[in-house]
């Protein structure tokens, strides 16, 4: 099939049982992602972004729905097939130090990715490790260092090198820059962008930093309480946000005002996200929404197109 997307997620839900209660982490989320494209996932902490990213890689099993990767339903793969398929789908973590083995040198950690996937001979793997180190901007000597001997930015470069060692097609970036200094964030973002172009990678980029998402993403999905409230191309969504939640998120981006006319009071979002154990009836956002009316607490808004390829789940959108 020529127009089959690299990754197709259909109506995926994920629930966790916590002490007898059900936590609705992800509710009926669908999206498609083509090779070389980036999907940005934004939302507050606890909105289900990371869970969705892990479900897409089958690091967590979906409770409902399908995840189709390269035309194959990954839930139907045997564990051996899945392990082989993992070569094409990788993940970069928020905390690179926690994701690396502190008893393995950086070079060994990157090489281990290739060993696991049975790639190349020993000499080829070593050579590829050096190439990767160079490509992600680490000195060759870093291969002999242990992860904790490196700075946070360098550790994240190791995480990237390891994920790319097996030449994946899809990489889930789970808040890869949230733990880094601002100056380092820019370097890592540029690196990710360059690598995407070179290797035709598809990214699922999870972040609560909207500026970065806008910069990197082709399409953006806004999650609230595990549900998609708005999705569209990055351009449309940031230029013309339709859902009140998206608007609040965009308004909360801190910009340095260039003139006194641009100065405006900061508008935060009142309250906390409701408990995912008992999501509100009707629109999940209505308890905090400035536009909410009686209808919002009774009737759940459906996703509908407000423009070509731009969908929002709000009664007042469009």
């Amino acid at each position, binding site marked *: 099939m020529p127009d089959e997307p690299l990754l197709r997620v259909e109506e995926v839900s994920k629930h966790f049982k916590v002490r007898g209660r059900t936590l609705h982490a992800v509710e009926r989320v669908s999206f498609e992602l083509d090779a070389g494209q980036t999907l940005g996932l934004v939302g507050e902490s606890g909105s289900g972004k990371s869970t969705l990213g892990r479900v897409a890689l089958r690091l967590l099993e979906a409770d409902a729905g399908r995840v189709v990767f390269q035309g194959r339903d990954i839930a139907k793969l045997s564990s051996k097939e899945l392990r082989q398929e993992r070569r094409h789908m990788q993940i970069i973590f928020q905390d690179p130090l926690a994701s690396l083995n502190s008893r393995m040198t950086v070079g060994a950690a990157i090489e281990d990715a290739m060993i*696991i996937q049975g790639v190349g001979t020993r000499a080829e793997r070593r050579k590829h490790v050096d190439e990767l180190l160079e490509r992600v901007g680490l000195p060759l000597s870093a291969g002999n260092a242990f992860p904790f001997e490196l700075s946070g930015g360098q550790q994240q470069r190791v995480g990237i090198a390891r994920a790319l060692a097996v030449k994946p097609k899809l990489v889930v970036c789970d808040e890869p820059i949230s733990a880094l200094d601002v100056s380092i964030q820019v370097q890592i973002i540029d690196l990710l962008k360059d690598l995407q172009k070179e290797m035709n990678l598809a990214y699922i980029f999870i972040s609560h930093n909207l500026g970065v998402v806008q910069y990197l993403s082709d399409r953006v999905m806004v999650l609230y309480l595990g549900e998609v409230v708005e999705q569209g191309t990055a351009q449309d969504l940031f230029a013309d946000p339709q859902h009140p939640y998206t608007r609040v998120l965009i308004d909360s981006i801190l910009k340095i005002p260039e003139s006194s006319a641009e100065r405006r009071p900061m508008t935060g979002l009142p309250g906390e996200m409701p408990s995912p154990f008992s999501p509100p009836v009707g629109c999940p956002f209505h308890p905090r929404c400035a536009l909410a009316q009686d209808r919002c607490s009774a009737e759940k808004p459906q996703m509908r197109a407000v423009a070509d390829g731009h969908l929002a789940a709000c009664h007042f959108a469009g």
Partner: protein
Amino acid sequence: MAVASMPTSSATASPRRRSQLGMAWRRYRRNWLAVAGLVWVILFLIIGIIGPWIAPYSYQATDFLNANQGPTWQHIFGTDNLGHDMFSEILWSVQNALEIAFGATLISFVVGVILGLWAGLKGGAADMFVMRLVDFMFAFPTFFMDLILVTKFGRGMGPILFAIGITGWAGYARLIRSLVLGMRNGEMVEAATALGATQWHIMRRYLFPNVMNSMLVALAFGIPGDLTVMAGLSVVGMGLRPPLPSFGNMIAAAGGNMLGYPWLMYFPAGIFAITLLAFLFVADGLQEALNPKGGF
């Protein structure tokens, strides 16, 4: 530690691959007490093996004409009330002490590792069961249990070794369970899973190297602990049955006549104390040396 993330900066000086063992040894060498302890422990091990051959007398040989003698050239550590040569007795004791200490620690270790791994990896009911068993072992006075077991099964090498071993596993089980539990759901394992690693690969390359060092240190601390328990059994009269020599027996026997024949106490107690300290220094040194964050 934080090196600027410029490509030109060098994180390490030498480009060759560093071996974990080599670096651990370098760190170990810095601690002179640990090195001294290691020398003593190695000496102790060698004597444990060759002691019976170099001993000038048999541990059963008695010389009533020369009983209760102070140190002389003939009997450099003196003789006891039956005329046993103390030097030979100590050489023989080292072997018995080592056999029991290593054997018992090995039994505890194997039982503890198996139960701890099972509890940590399986979780749920298995974890509950093992941990209640561990609680029981900790709450129960194990020395008392050792006495019961030795009384029941006799005072030979085997029963004592078994009794000390079977009562000492709880600490190892608890340690390895907590280590495994902490890593099982961590991002390190998740990252390895995402790379497509098998359970076996994750165990071998990720979990095991991270628990091994702690286990080695626990082992090194466990050996002097078991030596002490073994001596303790002798002191209450339930240790190795004489004439099999052991440090505990000699110390217990000398206690009754400390003022008259103090050398009977000095030599075995002194050597035993130094041995315990040596093992502890080694364990301490290992703890520091095996931590990769300990520097170079």
